[in-house]
């Protein structure tokens, strides 16, 4: 990892940031609900390489949490481990109090960088509908259940403001439109938790702001906890309760002001990192190492 030259990534926090935060120190002012996600001393090994080790993280009901870190550090892997899609080499994960993979029906998942093939001739509403009952075996039988499903899909489409284009083939929609429909899909089964992997990636700045606002509004209205993976924290900063900053040797969590500081990040990555404040209240992280996996990650072709 250290062979790659340091890069600069931008992360912003309110300029009031404290300078040293103890890891795993939740915001004391916030009323913590029941714990939805609990990761303890977890280690992930992929293709013989340890991606991260000794990671502790927790998410409580109602929280809006960001998982941050440079590309290739294993943020997506952490979400997959929480869902039981990637087994851990060590440590434990509990999702909604159950072992991974057993409570996924109460979780909405939006994987990283999914854009549909332009020639895919399936409508947006069909993709949303799959999130509701796509895992049911047998033919959909017309009847009360089917009508209820149709009504639920219409409600979801309206919730994300996609009514204008949900009936068009999904491959022909813009990235932002697809992302809104995928959020609707993730919400289909009224989950208690949303796991969103870089939902703002590949969107232009106005769309990033709009989709971030949408996620926050829905999280509050539907009382869903949100874990959002981000490479750039700026668009979601104002909505965040807490951030989990991931490094190869563990994770640090706390309020953005506690975590995104020179001292904390320098300790996390073991290399000098500086957090600078800009005049408009944004902070820039300088010297953050990029993991070598940057380019493979860009195409999202891994299973």
């Amino acid at each position, binding site marked *: 990892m250290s062979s790659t030259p340091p890069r600069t990534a931008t992360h912003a926090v309110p300029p009031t940031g404290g300078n040293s935060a103890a890891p795993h120190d939740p915001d004391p002012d916030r009323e913590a609900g029941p714990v939805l996600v609990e990761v303890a001393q977890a280690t992930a090994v992929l293709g013989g390489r340890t991606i991260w080790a000794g990671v502790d993280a927790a998410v409580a009901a109602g929280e809006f949490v960001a998982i941050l870190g440079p590309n290739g550090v294993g943020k997506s892997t952490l979400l997959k481990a929480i*869902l039981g*899609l990637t087994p851990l080499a060590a440590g434990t994960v509990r999702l909604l109090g159950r072992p991974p*993979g057993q409570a*996924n*029906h109460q*979780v909405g*998942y*939006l*994987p990283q960088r*999914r854009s*549909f093939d332009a020639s*895919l*001739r*399936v*409508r947006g509403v*069909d*993709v949303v509908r*799959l*999130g509701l*009952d*796509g*895992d*049911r*075996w*047998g*033919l*959909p039988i017309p009847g009360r259940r089917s009508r209820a499903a149709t009504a639920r899909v219409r409600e979801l489409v309206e919730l994300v403001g996609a009514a204008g284009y949900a009936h*068009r*083939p999904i491959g*022909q929609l813009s990235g932002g439109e697809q992302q809104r429909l995928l959020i609707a*899909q*993730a919400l289909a089964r009224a989950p208690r938790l949303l796991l969103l992997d870089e939902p703002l990636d590949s969107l232009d700045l106005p769309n990033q702001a709009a989709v971030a606002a949408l996620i926050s509004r829905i999280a509050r209205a539907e009382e869903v906890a949100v874990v959002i993976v981000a490479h750039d924290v700026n668009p979601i900063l104002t909505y965040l309760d807490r951030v989990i900053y991931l490094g190869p040797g563990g994770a640090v969590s706390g309020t953005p002001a506690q975590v995104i500081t020179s001292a904390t990040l320098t300790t996390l990555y073991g290399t000098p990192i500086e957090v600078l404040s800009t005049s408009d209240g944004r902070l820039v992280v300088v010297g953050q190492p990029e993991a070598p996996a940057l380019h493979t990650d860009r195409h999202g*072709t891994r*299973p």
Partner: protein
Amino acid sequence: MTGVFSWNLIADIRDMWSVAFMVNAFRAGTIVAVLAALVGWFMVLRRQSFAGHTLAVVGFPGAAAAVWAGLGVAYGYFGFCLAAALVIAALPQRGNRGYTEQSAVIGTVQAFALAAGMLFIALYGGFLGGTSALLFGSFLGITQSQVLILALAAVATLVVLALIGRPLLFASIDTDVARAHGLPTRALGTAFLLLLGATAAEVSQITGALLVFALLVLPPATAQLLTARPAASLTLSVALALVTVWVALFVAYYSPYPIGFWLTTIAFGLYVLAYAAVAGRARLGTRATHPIAAGA
């Protein structure tokens, strides 16, 4: 050319259906059309046309081997196609969907299958008339028992497809989320390849091993061009396949050219018409994405 065309269509059809093997040909064609239209729809969606074509080509050595061994041709088709489906399913999968990285392997299998087919034919000797039927299709001499085998295999295939259809659609267009929802996406892929193998075996018996695309790709692709609603698209695909098979059988009965040629020409003609219609609509300003055959 088998019949004498008279320009009185009703009389022609009656004349054609008075021949026992033509009745069997229509029965077999109808079964195969429905099956190909539905399984092919998923194949087009999953972009596995190349795998589908390979499975069909593998049917050729299967049938030739069966002839050589003195067995029924159907056994050769089904045996080889299903075995090849398992081989393709066992290839390491990379990426979310599709077989792009495996196309070289699949292409090799295809070439080897053709070579093996020619070998079996050489071993059997004196089989040259049959070779063209195996490759380019034939509707002559379809027996009652062949129709029965086709029907049983088609029913079995469609029952399985109906059971796994919705999860398969999910896994096909949204693999990661389907997996998070607990669906066995890998097993679904294998199951679908077996269905595709069975379908390719059935379709090759009518269209020949080289022209399966006439029924397996063109009607579903045409339907998907015309509508983006899954249910309407599947229905339309079946309707197009039936029209293709029925018209092709009728024309082939009264013309000197082989059935495979007519099947392919009609299916391709329908595709071109649909393409022109969609493009024309787009030019007229109405949205091409709007389903044309919404109620179909």
